[in-house]
């Protein structure tokens, strides 16, 4: 992606005064040479101050650069990731340049405008203090954004590498739908840093994961990373019903396993499409003709909108059985039931 494309992506770039001289800010701005940054006192005076319709991200997306305040690293919900060890997530960014039709961000924030937080030193400090009590903890990036989609501009992960190299029991997960691995490949592969990819078969991905790279491109990126020795995780999440589900996932899993060193795939996590009520309302509003609505949802036991229980179980067991039939060990398969 060249800098021209980057500049085109953002209508305006706004920088908090306090981080103007932060090296990460300087780096980001150097990648946006044509941007005329607007200096603001406090991000919260602007970001999310007005209700900005989600789909304005298509042609009116602003980029905010600022400092994350408050708690920087938070305990992850129970059903998060591989069970056993404690899980935390940290916020380095809000919102995403992609446009997956089911994305929860459309009902979560009141604006699609992007925020990049640049005080990574403080995030790392907080991670360090958690490790004192929980040396085996997992730390996840990408709860409210895609971890790698803008990495060609931000290149923040190199700052985390040394830290996790020196803390080999702690684990870092960078979750993505991008193929933006140019800045990752030169780094030393670490056993405790996982690059995890959300994958869907080609057809549903084309239909629902707007603006994301193709499944083929993602598998190519996974291959490059696994060839270079990086640890990989795969999220088949969200699984969306299709009459051709069995064929589509068999094809996807074949393609993936043919191209990847299976020993480097730490886990496969499986989850079925689900929404909160607010998110679902937004999905209906933003994508009224989407095929996402072509299959019946119900209000589930926890008030989330999902497929019926037999359907959820059928989807999970179908994909799980395909994995098992390809000699993926059951211990590496996690079902996301929440």
């Amino acid at each position, binding site marked *: 992606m060249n800098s021209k494309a980057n500049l085109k992506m953002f209508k*305006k770039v*706004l920088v908090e005064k306090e981080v103007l001289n932060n090296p990460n800010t300087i780096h980001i701005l150097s990648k946006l040479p044509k941007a005329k940054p*607007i200096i603001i006192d406090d991000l919260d005076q*602007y970001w999310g*101050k*007005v*209700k*900005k*319709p989600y789909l*304005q991200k298509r*042609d*009116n997306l*602003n980029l905010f650069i600022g400092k994350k305040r408050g708690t920087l690293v938070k305990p992850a919900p129970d059903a998060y990731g591989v069970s056993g060890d404690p899980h935390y997530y940290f916020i380095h960014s809000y919102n995403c340049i992609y446009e997956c039709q089911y994305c929860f961000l459309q009902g979560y924030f*009141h604006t699609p405008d992007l925020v990049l937080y640049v005080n990574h030193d403080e995030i790392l400090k907080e991670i360090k203090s958690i490790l004192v009590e929980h040396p085996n903890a997992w730390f996840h990036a990408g709860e409210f954004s895609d971890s790698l989609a803008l990495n060609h501009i931000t290149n923040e992960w190199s700052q985390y590498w040394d830290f996790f190299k020196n803390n080999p029991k702690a684990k870092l997960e960078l979750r993505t739908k991008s193929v933006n691995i140019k800045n990752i490949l030169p780094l030393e592969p670490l056993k405790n840093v996982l690059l995890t990819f959300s994958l869907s078969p080609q057809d549903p991905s084309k239909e629902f994961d707007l603006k994301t790279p193709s499944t083929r491109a993602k598998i190519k990126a996974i291959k490059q990373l696994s060839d270079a020795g990086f640890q990989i995780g795969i999220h088949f999440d969200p699984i969306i019903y299709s009459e051709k589900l069995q064929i589509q996932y068999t094809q996807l899993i074949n393609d993936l396993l043919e191209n990847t060193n299976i020993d480097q795939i730490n886990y496969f996590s499986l989850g079925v499409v689900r929404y909160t009520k607010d998110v679902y309302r937004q999905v209906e509003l933003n994508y009224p*003709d*989407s*095929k996402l*609505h*072509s*299959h*019946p949802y*119900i209000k*589930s*036991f926890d008030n989330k909108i999902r*497929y*019926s*229980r*037999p*359907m959820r*179980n*059928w989807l*999970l*067991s179908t994909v*799980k059985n395909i994995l098992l039939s390809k000699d993926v060990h059951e211990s590496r398969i996690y*079902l996301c*039931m929440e």
Partner: protein
Amino acid sequence: MKLLCFAHRNEAKTFFDRLKLSPLDTSLNLFKSKNEFILISGEGIQSTTELLSIVLSKYENISEIINYGIAGSLDKSLKENSIFSIRTVYQYFDDFSFKSHTSHDKQATIDLISVHKRIYSPEDKLKLSIYAHLLDMETWALASVAKRFKKKWKSYKTVSDSLDEATKCQQIANEAKFYSDLFWNHFINTKEQSPLSESSRNLILENSSLYFTHTQAHQIRKYCKSLILRDPSFLESFTSSKKYKSIVESEKSRKEKSKEVLNLLATDYDPITFKELQRTQKVFKSLKNQYLNFDHSEYIEKNSIKFKGQFKSSNDLRNIIRTLEKINIDELKGKSKDV
């Protein structure tokens, strides 16, 4: 009927010349032609809110509000003398207001912010430009009132920023004819022919050998809507399928046939759940007796069995216990059992 709304009478000059307008209520600055109302709302949020609210509550046959006006530019790339359709309108009143309103023009791409006083300083304009391309003093009020009255609204603006904001009124007075012609031409060129109501025909519901209750018809529409999303030609292929034809052409009663068609659709709609529902329903039906009645409606999702029992004697109670003991929970769960 449409309500055309202008802040200044000068902006509407050509409309007054071309449409045969008669005053409807002079205290409201409201006029009427054969097909349109025209309101001169005056400048500012308050005047617009007051007049528009009164007009909309008095004239309930207004279905859509169309606003034309001149706006200040916050974006140098916008060309003067072009008409921009407004997408989202924001408000700034000492600070940004959280609420925004989005117009009914799905093609619109330009956003506007309404302010309460004239904005002169470049710093203030820069701040407002974070959210909007254009600036005015009325549109947010118009959109807000339209929303309250559940009316559609569209707003079209032209840019006047080659001159200083302070001279705007003078400019409008001087160039009224020009702007008003611009708005008129736009109005005439985009005046929609009332679109023929989209066909909502449903070949299944129209079949005279079937009879659906109100609830069933609702269900049919729901299934068809989803199935058409999956396959736009679904209805045609469904109604020409062998299965459908054999049901419709059978000797059974209309009621029975309709139920079968509904089940056939339900199978297409969600085969896995439908099959499970039928299976569990069958199990519960076989267990039902004079002492026990099962409510299977929530079973599939909650995996818990709800029943009503009634007994008068210990013999009845024993019967109930015996029936309940017959339930094979694991078998019953089937596909509802978590993987």
